[in-house]
Structure formats: structure tokens, C-alpha cells
């Protein structure tokens, strides 16, 4: 159940869109922020708010890689594995992340801090290899830099 205030603000967001579907991503992101991930309950709530069926919300939710339909850690790491980053040996970075965090792709660290996900091009090709941690972008990664970033992100609130 979402609080009344959130509900009201989402309704206003939807009312200002030309079609309700257009506001779907915003609504999902807000609900995700509220629950920590987009729960089944949140999908149903989004559907009710948007006048769509849960399936139609699920279609969108599962398309976008930053909508999480399973529980995730406090910060999600999106590490790019698209062409430019691949040329810049992102495989090494990904391997390093796995080793360092002790999880595979899709896994969440035991302390619940990080979830590691591959992603497609983030538009940071010029600074490849690239990743984002909790929404903050980082480029020109090296294993050493990754260690520093993880350390810093772990302590940043």
C-alpha cells in the first residue's frame, strides 16, 4: 500500500500526461523508489493508477533495465557490456566486479549493499569502459578505480 500523498502526486503526474501510458515509466520509478523494487503489488497499483492492466504495466516494467522486478541491493551497479565498452575490455572490469563483490551478474552482495547488472550502452562510449553505481556514472574504469569507487559508494549515503 502506498501512502495517500504519493498516490495524489502520481495521480497529478498522470493527469498532466497526454496519454496515461506516457506517464507509466515515471510512476514505476516512483513506486520503485518507495518499495525499493517494483513489487507485484506495485505493478498492480501502477496499473490501477494508469488505467492499464497489470500485464500492460509488466510489459513496460520488464522492458526497462532500470526497473527492478526483483529485490535489489541498496545500490545497483549497471556495468556496460555494449560494443564500445567491450572494445575497451569491459570483460576484465566485469570479472573484477564479480570477484570483488563475490556475486555473479544479477547477484546481490551478502550485506545487501550492491546488485551487479550488465547493461547496454549508457552513452558514455567516449569514456568506456563505463558503469553506474546507484545512478552515479563512472567512466575510464580500471580495476583499481573500481575498488576506489566501490569503497566510496559503500560509505556514501
Amino acid at each position, binding site marked *: 500500500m502506498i501512502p495517500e500523498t504519493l498516490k495524489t502526486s502520481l495521480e497529478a503526474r498522470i493527469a498532466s500526461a497526454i496519454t496515461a501510458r506516457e506517464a507509466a515509466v515515471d510512476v514505476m520509478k516512483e513506486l520503485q523508489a518507495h518499495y525499493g523494487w517494483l513489487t507485484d503489488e506495485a*505493478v498492480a497499483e501502477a496499473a490501477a493508477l494508469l488505467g*492499464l*492492466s*497489470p*500485464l*500492460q504495466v*509488466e*510489459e513496460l516494467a*520488464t*522492458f526497462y*533495465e532500470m526497473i527492478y522486478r526483483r529485490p535489489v541491493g541498496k545500490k545497483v551497479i549497471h556495468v556496460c557490456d555494449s560494443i564500445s565498452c567491450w572494445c575497451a575490455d569491459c570483460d576484465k572490469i566485469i570479472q573484477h566486479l564479480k570477484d570483488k563483490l563475490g556475486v555473479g551478474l544479477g547477484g546481490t552482495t551478502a550485506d545487501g549493499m550492491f546488485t551487479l547488472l550488465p547493461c547496454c550502452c549508457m552513452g558514455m562510449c567516449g569514456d568506456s569502459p563505463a558503469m553506474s553505481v546507484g545512478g552515479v556514472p563512472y567512466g575510464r574504469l580500471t580495476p583499481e578505480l573500481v575498488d576506489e569507487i566501490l569503497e566510496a559508494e559503500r560509505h556514501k549515503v
Partner: protein
Amino acid sequence: MPKLIIDDIPVEVAPGTSVLEAARSVGITIPHFCYHPALAIAAACRLCAVKLLDGPVKGIQMSCALPAQDGMVVSTTDPEALKMRSLVIEWLMLNHPHDCPICDEGGECLLQDFTIAGGHSRRRYQGKKRTFQNQYLGEGIHHEMNRCIECYRCVRFYQDYAGGTDFGVMGSAGRVYFGRFQEGPLESPFSGNLVDICPTGVFTDKTGRFRARYWDYQFAPSICQHCSVGCNTSPQNFQRETIKIVGRRNDQVNGWFICDRARFDKAYLNDPQRPRDPRLDGATCGYDVAVDAAAKSITEFVRRNGAGALAFVGSPRLSLEGMILLAQLARAAGGARLSYYGDPDQQQGSVAAAKLLHEENTAYVREIEQAQWVALHALDLMEEGPMLALAVRKAFLAGAQIFLVDGDPIPARNIPPFKYTAVESLDQVPFEGGGKGVIICGCGKKDPELLAQIASSGAKLVMLQPGANGFAAALLTIEHAASPLTELVASGQVKGVVCFEADVPDGLLSQVEVLASADWRRGPVHDKSPIFLPTTTWVESDGTAINCEGRAQRFERSRVAGLPLRGLDPKYYGSATEAVTLHPPRLHRKEVPGGAERDAWQVMAQLIERLGGEPVEPLSGKWRALKSLDPEGEGVRIFEMGLGE
């Protein structure tokens, strides 16, 4: 009209025609998966590549998404196009489980056909295949996602075309999944079309799985008998059992699709309890013995009570042929009474509609699709003419306003796939451009005055009949001044009845003597009748049906009459102990078990002869023109033949 050259053949097509369709018009089938004539173009599968050698566009192009243009020179056989198609099909097949032998689609599978036609015959891929969990989608459809090639036909049909919201596409990239949010029965009353539209075996008809292969089936063009829309179908039969029913294209009626009632509601055809043996006084007898007895009983009754006390009773379930002969039979019996309807209100409405409709005011399905507004007059459309709801939806999507006039609230299971405004009377419907508006109503039980008022509106009309062949019943009722059975009995005129596929209203049976009855199903009439003559259903007979817009359509026998081999009683195995088996009986016999049934009109013809009448041909006289009706054509509206009067 663009003129182009395809594989050295000059082609001229209507503007907007795709190169794929243009090629098809001269007999060249370019392999394709995502393209379907009824759906919007997706160009998702990339299989339909051709090479343009010259003209306004050059190089490899997707022929489904490329409108034909003047001066194009197209090659469907260019090595580069061939290579492209074979690589695309190889790629689409990467994850496919190659399980055709255990797939019910095998033999009627577009994927099989176009994999071969596309030039992919050897698997090179050695990697792991992606696999999916299937979902339970209800009792109609089986789900097997691993066979999916991501053509998006299913979701384009289900959501865009049919307006369903509970089935769609989820995920992205290699994880694209077609299904529901959670397992459960598909909600759309058109869900069965997924079976026909999916080019592979992702969706197969659960009600007929693993019974036979395509080449085992007997089938023939048929007409759905569930309502008066008259959609075209093709029942697929195996060993005297209707295994599946699929949609058959008729652009004037149902397009490519049918509703789930037409597809899945078929158990009654195969019912081993169907009364299959002729009976005389409770005992099984030969067919001719029963016909003789019926003729004798009729003669006796007429001698005792006069022909006016006898009624021949039919129903809108009869074929046109049966209805015509019923009238002749009444005449041969010395001028007996005639009835096609039990209930006066139904007859009155049905007849009023047939009188009011003519070529100019009767809507074509296309006119519904293109209407500016559609008014449903006190109508539950999903009950009375489901497929028309898809035509109304097209109009709705194109911006038409839809009204439900004076209607009861529509039950949740029958919510139509479009939005509508409920209003109290037709006056509230904005009539500007009346010619581009369509009023749809049911006519059974409607007051003729109301129907006349609706007809005088100037809008195009659809008046759904109270039975699949109600329009024909109305025409015959008018021609022969037939009366509703209730009235004939209530007025005390009629004391005896002979019933042909008649549904006699409750309570009437106790007031009349039933001399004989003929039907393919069991009912109170059957139980009361001393003489019983089993008849064939529409799958086992040839006939003509006239739909609600007066369109005469021919259906053909698609299997012989008789008990389905499956579940055949052990007695037919010459052994009371042999387990019921799917193997044909090992006993030699000439007759098909339970195969004594005859078409109702043929039984009538025999009775007419027994009563001293001339041998008769149902489609003669004014009906002669219908004799040459092409079962695979679009049918003809009878108005054109002056039969509507």
C-alpha cells in the same frame, strides 16, 4: 496504380500494396512470419527480404514493409536475397527446440514451411538454447514458449486487433516472452485465434491436441452455426470426430478470425450420447421402416383429424434446404400447418427484420468498420454476434463513437473490446451523416414497430437473428404464412406435430400429440415421440445458411455420419470385454456404426414421396440461383436475387 516487375513478371497493383502482396498476386510466395494481412506491419522477423535491382529503391529490402512503386524491378531469387533469408531463418531457429514430432502444429506449421522454403536445412549452432517456463492459459490453449520466433503476431492480434489486455509481450532482447502477468485462463473471447495466427506451435488447441496430423484430417468449407453472423470455418475431422475448428477467411463476413464459441464449443458434435438410431415405439429399427411408419402415422392422423390439425415444425437450426422442403412436406400432407418458430415474439421480430432489410439499408461488415458512429440497440453483442464486436472495435479505433441504447448493463464476462456511452434512446445518438452510422440490434423478441422505427433512421442496419439460420426461417415464414407453434396450439387448431430439429417451448408438448420427430440431439420432443429419425449436424451435411445480412452461404459435409471412433462402444469390437480402444473395430461390417443419420431435408424428401408427392429438389424455383453457390466464395446477399421480397 503502380506498375513493377517481380521476377521478370510485370505486375500492376493498387497503391499501397506491399511488394510481398504484389508478388503473391502473381503466385510468388515470399517467406514471411510477422506479416499477416489482417494486422499492422511490424517488419519484426526480417525474413521477407527481396532485392531491388532497379527503380526508386535499391538493394535488399523487407518486402512486407515496402509499398510497391512504379518502376521497381524486384528479384525474389537474387543470391543475396536468398542468402539473407536463409541466414535470418537460421538465426530465428537458433533457440527452437526442433521438437516437431511432438508438436501438434507439425504438418500445419508456417515455421516448418518457411524454414525449408527459406533455405535453412542444417543446424550449425552448437550453443545452449534459451528456454522458458510455460504458463497455464486456460482449457482452450496450450502454451509452449520455447517454439517462439518473436514475430509479435500473437500480441498484435490479441491486444491491437481484439482489444484483450491480459496477454502480451514481456522482457527484452533474448528474453522476450509472450504470455500473461500470471498464469490463468485467457480472458479475450477471441483468444482461440492465437492458435491460427501464431506461425509456430507456441499456441495449440488444447481441446484437440495429439489426435491427428493435418494430412489425417477430413475437412471442408463450413459455416459457424452458433449465431447469425455466419462466420466461415473449417472443421477438422478425424475418424468421425471433429477434432478442431479453425477460422476460414471471408473478407465480407469474419475476415480471418472466429470467436472462441465457434472454435471450442464442439463437444455436442462428438457426443456419444447423440441419438443415432432410428426408433419406432422405443425400439431401434431400420431407417426406411421408421420413415414408412412416419408416413403412415401422418396419413392416419390427417384422415382422422384433417390436415389442418397437423403442423410440421422446424426451427432456425434447419438448413435452408430443410426449411424449403418442410413447406413442401406440409403441402404433400394435404395442406398441413407450418411453423418455423415456437415463440410468437421471436417469429415476429425475425420476420419484421427480414421484411425491413434490403440491399441499400443492410450494413456490410466493412460498413461497420468504417462507420462514424455505431449504436448497439438493447444488445449484448458478445452474446448475440461476437465477431461483429471486432468490426465495431475497428470503427472505434478509427474514431467512431459507440452507443449502447436502452441496454441492460452488460455482464462482466461480455464486456466488448471498445468503449461506449450508454444512452436511453436513439434520439440521443447524434445522427449527422446518418448514412455513415450503423445500428446493430437483435431482432428476436423485438417489437416490429420498434424495428421499423430503427430502420427508418436512415442508418445502415444489422439485425441479428435469433438463430444461425433465422433469416431463412423468416423468408420461409413469410412465403408460406407459417405461424408460431405456440399460437397454433393455443388456438386449438393444431393437435399433432411432426418435428424437424425443432425446439418446442416448454409446456407445449403436453398439449399436442407428437407423431414423429427428427433431430441430431436429444430433447423432450425426442423423448415423447414414438417415431424418431436421427439427422446429421452441419458437419455431416451439405446445406445453405442465410446470415443476418441476408448472405446465403454454402457449407459442405466435412465428415461422414456415425459414431466417432474414439470411445466407440465395445460392442462394435465384436467382444463385450475388449477395452475401448482407438483402433478401428476388427469386425467386418458395411455400415458405419451409428451412421444411419440422414440430412433432415433428405428425410423430408423421402416422406414427401411416401405421401404421394413428386420427388423434390430443394433449391429449385426461385431458389435455383443458390444451387451454384461456391462454398469457398464470399456467399451472396439474397437481395441481389430478388429473394428478399
